[in-house]
Every structure is written in C-alpha cells, then in structure tokens.
C-alpha cells in the first residue's frame, strides 16, 4: 500500500500562448483565442501530492504548515496575480501552456525537504486539467 497526501491551492494568473518566431496567422491557427496579444487569465487550481512514511509521533507524512509555507514561497508568491509570460522566468524559454506550468511548478517544488513531491495537478478551468507525475523511480 502506498500513501499520498494531496493539498489544493489556487491562484489567478494570466498568459498568452504564442511563439515570437511564428507569424500572427500561424500563432492564431495553432493557439486560437489563447494567442490574443492582450493576454487572458484563469483561476488556476493547483493540487500537490506528497508521499513518504507517516511519522508515528505526528500521524503525518508532512506537516501542512511546512508544505503550505513551501508552496507559498516557491510558487504562489511568484504566480499569484502574475502575467506568466513576463513575470515567471521559466516562460522566457517555453510557452506557458498548463502542461508547461505543471512541469515548472513541479520543478520548483521538487526540493521540498520534508517529503517526496509525487506530482502536481492543475485545473485551468472546470473543463480541463493537467497532471505531472515524478518519474516512478526517484
């Protein structure tokens, strides 16, 4: 049996999906409305999963205060109310699709000292969600 603890957070942020080296027509063909030059935003819901042994003294895989503080510092302080294309350095190199947001957030969280970050799941809207899991043999 394997045990994972999930915690859910939310942050509003904006983005624009486009590649500077592509023409406006090509960007619009690939990214549709998401290529709108003025950008647009979502209320993202972020779920973070941690695994590890349960400390018998606390009954916990990880203290939620530690996890909340780490997520706040590594992710929410930067992403909350941000224009991701400009204000999150990782997105100078890649398009801030929610696939890439998952990967970037997972990488930012992977140094959590108290438990193993197993994966992240992000709901961009009520209709679509994305999940990024750690490689199975960390």
């Amino acid at each position: 049996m394997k045990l994972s603890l999930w915690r859910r957070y939310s942050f509003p942020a904006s983005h624009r999906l486009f590649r500077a080296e592509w023409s406006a027509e090509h960007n619009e063909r690939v990214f549709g409305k998401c290529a709108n030059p003025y950008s647009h935003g979502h209320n993202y819901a972020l779920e973070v999963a941690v695994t590890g042994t349960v400390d018998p003294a606390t009954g916990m895989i990880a203290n939620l205060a530690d996890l909340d503080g780490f997520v706040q510092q590594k992710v929410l302080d930067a992403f909350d109310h941000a224009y991701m294309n400009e204000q999150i350095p990782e997105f100078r190199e890649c398009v801030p699709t929610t696939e890439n947001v998952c990967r970037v957030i997972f990488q930012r969280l992977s140094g959590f000292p108290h438990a193993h970050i197993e994966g992240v799941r992000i709901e961009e809207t009520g209709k679509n969600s994305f999940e990024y899991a750690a490689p199975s043999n960390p």
Partner: protein
Amino acid sequence: MIRVTRKLEFSAAHFYHNPNLSAEENRRVFGKCNNPHGHGHNYVLEVTVAGEPDPKTGMVLDLKELKEILDREVTQRMDHRHLNYEVPDLAGKIPTCEEIATVLWRILEPKIHQGRLDRIRLYESPDLFVDCTADGMKGAR
C-alpha cells in the same frame, strides 16, 4: 481492467495530541488541531475496486454488496463518532487523514473478494485529501 468507485460521507470529530510531547510542542506541531475540545469534518471517502467485469453479470463486483461492506465497516465505525475516543482501530495513533486512510485500507482490503481494492481517497476537506493505492513494491509498511 475496469475501476469502479463508490463514494460515501461520514462526519466525525477529532483533535491531534501526542502525550509524549509537551503542551507547547503539541501546539507548535499541530496548531489549531491541538484544541483539546476537538473539532469535526464531513469526510468524503471514495473507494475504487479494480477488476474485469464478470461476463454473466457485466459487473466487476456487486455494488450493493460493496455498499453493505462500507456501511458496516466505515459508516457504523466512524460516522458521528469522536475518532480519538470511539474508534479502537485508531487507538494510540494521531487521527490524521493519513492514519484514518491507512486504517480504512487495512480494514477494507481483505473484505473485497470480487476484484481488488485499487485506491481509497479520503477527503478531510476539498483542499486536503489522501490516496491509498495498491502498490506492493513501494511504501509498504
């Protein structure tokens, strides 16, 4: 393989306190959850069973039977109970979501005879939940 999930809700009280720690240490580690008067949650439990549908019935398992198992093993044991005082399976443990889910996995896993228990997900609140999954190789305790 097909996964079938049944969902139920139970309401229970708990608080976190480790008698081996000082009062101050308990407050530091457990925060508001250390309040000795206790507090409660509406827990939501999702129980997933995996298997192949029986060609005669089209079912992985009889959901009525699963409902009876869950009524007997979960609802009667935990609904409207104080988890620190009234659930012997949790005696000596801090009744966190992790420990409750582990106890429920160990109770339910041997009771499922059609298909096998694949996952239980226990929500303490919409923002906090725990998954127990079948994984013999990793994390077995």
